[in-house]
């Protein structure tokens, strides 16, 4: 009989201990900063670690807790973050793409206004105006950008272009379609595409190239309709571009998409400039000799950006530490620690340019050029809120199947109105 009682006692002790351990996890870190991100890939993880080390060095005794969640280009992290925000259990700071991806958080009161911090740190002067405009939601700023990526880029292999006798990357989508005929005649794929989001990325660059920066911005803020003649023509171009791509056998991810360009079976690929760290660090290729890149057709002088930024959540356990973290994120020193490792450029225009070589140096010069027009990316959360963006995903996925351009435009137009 005592054996049975002992067993029951043992179970009780174990369950109490298990319960206690939960409390200790919650209670232990009053002197820690929990930062939530989806930076788990090569390069970006090292960049985050470098910033964490600097933060711990500047704040002795404080532990930097890296609560990164991997997978799905951030979509797994976003799902888990949503459940934490709904439970009012936010980390001390979390990552979002700068722009309207944060709209829901702002309207739901999940993040705190950082406009004062911007004035105090003088950030409005060191970030380009185009960036600050895209960061501003309802007149206030809620996130601090660490890095800048560029979306409107077309990657190619100079060797392939030489083999095919092409003079250079196309300046307009019309020119691309002309080149495409010649490329197809030689048995190669003119344009490699990847999974659904990369097709949306392509849609965004075609719209930008065909409409120009002003109309592109007005399309996404409701100034012009998806059914207007200009947009209809641009969507027609998009359909033609998809037609000469390998969308029927699209790659499963963006790296294999670029691999097709490297192997020469495809000639061009539209992708963001996270490609450069893949090409240079994983594939050991050199910019301009082994691979090259140009602004996507029709977008010379336009910088279609996306940016990883950090927030100050409402109900953060250590808002004081979170503010210090945000100051580091926005500082030239912090951005210079992170960006060379991640393979992106600093959002600040006064960070040391010498640290950015090869492709990154080229990108940084354009970012800082006062004549460069800055617009926000659709696919990467700058110009469309999450609801609208997810509905475009559905509509585009169906469009790739049915090919009915009018139906696509009507659906997206209606969804714009329903998700504002």
């Amino acid at each position, binding site marked *: 009989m005592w054996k049975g009682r002992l067993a029951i006692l043992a179970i009780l002790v174990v369950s109490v201990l298990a319960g206690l351990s939960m409390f200790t996890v919650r209670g232990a870190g009053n002197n820690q900063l929990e930062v939530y991100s989806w930076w788990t890939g090569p390069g970006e993880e090292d960049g985050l670690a470098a910033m964490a080390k600097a933060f711990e060095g500047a704040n002795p005794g404080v532990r930097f807790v890296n609560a990164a969640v991997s997978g799905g280009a951030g979509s797994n992290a976003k799902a888990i973050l949503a459940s934490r925000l709904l439970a009012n259990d936010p980390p001390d700071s979390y990552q979002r793409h700068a722009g309207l991806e944060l709209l829901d958080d702002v309207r739901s009161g999940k993040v705190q206004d950082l406009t004062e911090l911007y004035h105090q740190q003088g950030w409005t002067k060191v970030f380009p105006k185009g960036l600050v405009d895209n960061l501003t939601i309802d007149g206030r700023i809620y996130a601090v950008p660490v890095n800048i990526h560029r979306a409107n880029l077309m990657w190619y292999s100079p060797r392939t272009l030489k083999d095919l006798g092409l003079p250079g990357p196309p300046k307009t989508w019309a020119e691309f379609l002309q080149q495409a005929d010649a490329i197809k005649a030689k048995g190669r794929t003119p344009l490699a595409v990847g999974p659904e989001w990369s097709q949306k990325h392509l849609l965004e660059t075609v719209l930008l190239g065909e409409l120009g920066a002003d109309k592109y911005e007005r399309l996404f803020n409701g100034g012009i309709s998806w059914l207007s003649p200009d947009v209809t023509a641009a969507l027609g171009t998009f359909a033609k571009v998809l037609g000469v791509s390998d969308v029927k056998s699209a790659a*499963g991810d963006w790296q294999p998409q670029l691999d097709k360009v490297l192997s020469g079976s495809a000639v061009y690929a539209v992708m963001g400039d996270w490609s450069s760290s893949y090409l240079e660090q994983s594939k050991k290729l050199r910019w301009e000799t082994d691979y090259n890149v140009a602004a996507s057709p029709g977008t010379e002088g336009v910088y279609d950006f996306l940016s990883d930024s950090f927030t100050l959540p409402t109900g953060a356990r250590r808002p004081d530490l979170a503010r210090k973290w945000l100051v580091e994120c926005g500082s030239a020193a912090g951005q210079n620690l992170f960006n060379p490792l991640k393979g992106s450029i600093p959002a600040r225009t006064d960070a040391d340019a010498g640290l950015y070589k090869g492709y990154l140096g080229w990108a940084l010069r354009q970012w800082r050029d006062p004549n460069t027009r800055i617009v926000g990316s659709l696919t990467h959360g700058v110009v469309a809120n999450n609801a609208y963006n*997810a509905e475009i995903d559905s509509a585009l996925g169906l469009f790739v199947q049915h090919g009915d351009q009018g139906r696509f435009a009507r659906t997206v137009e209606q969804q714009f109105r329903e998700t504002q």
Partner: protein
Amino acid sequence: MTSVDRSGPAAHVARHSSEPARPAFVPPQRRPRKQRGPRWLPGLVLVSPSLILIGVFVYGFLGWNVRVSFTNWRGLSPKYHFVGLSNYTALLRDERFRADVRNLVIFTLVFVAGAMLLGFLMAMLLDRGVRGEAFLRGVYLFPMAISFIATAIVWRWLLDNGSGADTAGINKLLTVVGLGFLRSDWHKSDSIWAISAVALPAGWALSGYVMALFLAGMRGVNETLRESARMDGASEVQIFWYIVRPALRPVTFSALLIMVHISLKTFDLLYALDQGNLRIDTPSLYMWFTTFDGGFYDRGATIATVLLIGVALVVGPYVWYSLRTERR
């Protein structure tokens, strides 16, 4: 005592029958403790933790989910404003959802039929006494031990539909052995049957499990029944049809139910195989993306409720059937 035991079958019989006849060896009975409370109470107390946990975490949240499906909750601030059935009617008109339901039905039909048939054939072959049966059983069962995500990553390459220099995976294998005309676009094909290509990895993973179920069922058929049928001059086909087949009915039923509900829930395989390809989109994927990417908690909950009803329609008859047979 032991020496007597070893002496033969007769001794066994003797020992069993003689034991009650030796009261001297029975240890003195401990006085039963006084019974406090009704007899059913200890049992209830024992199962109550799991009852409470299931009640809260399964049925409680299930009810909450149904409640959300009747609201207009979008985004990070929960709203419980009652909107009636409007989420359900919107879902009926939703082009993506309708395609998803069609995909799910096709996938379930192809996958369940394929896995059942393959599993059954493998079980029948193994049952006939193949050499190295234990090894083969392990080989067939092994894919089930691999997570669906890993399965999908491997099959993403196997089902690659690149052409020309980009040919890879199964298509390349077919070309190499001279069967290039069988080349397929698999799950990227334009046909509405595209999703049935996913039955290949799903069946690869689970037909071994069906095989194990059937094999156990076949082994459970009493050998004396087969023997006596043979004595009566029945052929092996007749033995299978009249003896083994009826005995396999409960196993078939269970296997079918397990496969159908796995099929309805399939998420990770499709998620990792080709994310965002709506040709292989199903309601569970749409639920995930619309809820967590778009913040449409109302629509996500509605899809979940519809899925729940779908699964209940499958499981309900099974529960009813097993309750009825148990009562008999």
